[in-house]
């Protein structure tokens, strides 16, 4: 049995609720390389160079 899409926990949901939409593209299973090891997603989008700031905020 394989998870094709991992279950989203409430903790993760709260985390992503800060992101306003879909900041990481698609973190679930295919996270493309994180800017912060503690972040379940946090892939900087092409045109959002300020994104690492956000990870720092969440992990304060």
């Amino acid at each position, binding site marked *: *049995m*394989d*998870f*094709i*899409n*991992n*279950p*989203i*926990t*409430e903790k993760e*949901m709260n985390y*992503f*609720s*800060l*992101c*306003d*939409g*879909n*900041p990481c*593209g*698609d*973190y*679930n*299973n*295919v996270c493309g390389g994180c800017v912060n090891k503690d972040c379940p997603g946090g892939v900087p*989008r*092409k*045109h*959002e160079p*300020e994104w690492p*700031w*956000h990870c720092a*905020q969440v992990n304060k």
Partner: protein
Amino acid sequence: MKVSEWNICIPYNKGEILLNEITNAILYVEDENVEEANRAINGDFQVKNEIINSLIQGGFIIPDDFDETDRLKSRFNAYKFSSKFLRFTIALTLDCNFSCQYCYQSQLVPFARPNTHKRFDEEMLRAVLTATENLIKSERPHVLSITYYGGEPLLELKKLLEFSNAYKKMSKDYDLRYTSFVVTNGYLLTKNVAKKLVQSGVNSALVTLDGTQEFHDKYRPLKDGSGTFETIYRNIKEVTEIMDITLRINISKDSVGSVKKLIRRLAADGVKVDFDFQMIEVVPGLPSNFHDGLLTLEEFAKVEVDLYKEVFKCFPNYEFNPFSEIRPARCDALCKNSFVVEPDGKLYKCWGEVGSSRANVGKINLNGSISLNHRLDTWLAYSPFEDEECKRCKIFPLCMGGCVFNSLLFEKLHVSPIKKPYRCIPLRYNLEAIVKLFTERRRCQNGFHK
């Protein structure tokens, strides 16, 4: 332990796919485990530990005292009353350079109250900025989210940049994240304009192309009737290197083939965009120039799946996961700190109200203070949990009540003269197909088969 009320079981090849709508978990069950997994999700938990553990992890089996409706309500209320976000949709102008056949704003004109302020003047622009700053101080949001809207917002590029540069600075001053995008017909979105937008913090745009030239130019001409396709297509090609483009494609019964052609042309030209497929909706009984065939929601749901298949064929690396996020509410308009601002400073909740000027929930005054009225209570009191039809729907947790335009603006507040034809989302009709499509794609990408 008990079984979740929100499990969907979909036969898939010789195995099956399980979706839990509370956690968005999607579990592929191989044929050798199907029988035991089915027993478990029907309440017989005497099966292999490995199977039970996966089902618990995915939320398919839950503790006896877990009330899933309470979980949904808790998410919904937390989202609705969250201060994390401050969202403004700024209708920079009510004017437009296009004359789209299906434009809902034009359809509403006969019912609109006269609005003499069609564009922001400098005084109101300053007032909105002051009001935003006041709200940042009082609400302490983490994210300032601004959508530039219209009419056609790029007709007011100077004002848009003035807003956005000010918001960018404000976000830095108050240590919050500024996220913004522009909803535009794309006609004026040249490379030069895109550069200015990105510089001011507007990193993405929603641009509409309704298929290839034949259909797009028919549906979305300039005011003088001339075509717009080639200009927009050229603009999109040029700006995708500068900013993220989501291509909104409105579809009729007649234009499906043309939309597929457009997808193939974009792929051939190496133009990478996100796709947002929508059905053309025309409110029955209101004057409209649109005479092509309209898809029903059920028909559109099938078309949507077909179009995604075309996208995957043409763009093998296209990112697609409709289940990557949990949606605590259908629409941001339900949140306490989300407003649409018109050029006269009136505040609304729904994008669909722009131009009709009937049901404001308040106003930004010239000194930057905000006056809110009783209609805001109606918005904030809305709960999809009071809607029996929605609660019984098999996709309720994924949809959370559908579009609230009809239930709030038409039925409750009596301020809209029209009802939108549909409030439901296509997932009501294509959930299984979308889950299969997603699973197929994931398994291919992960090298599980073929």
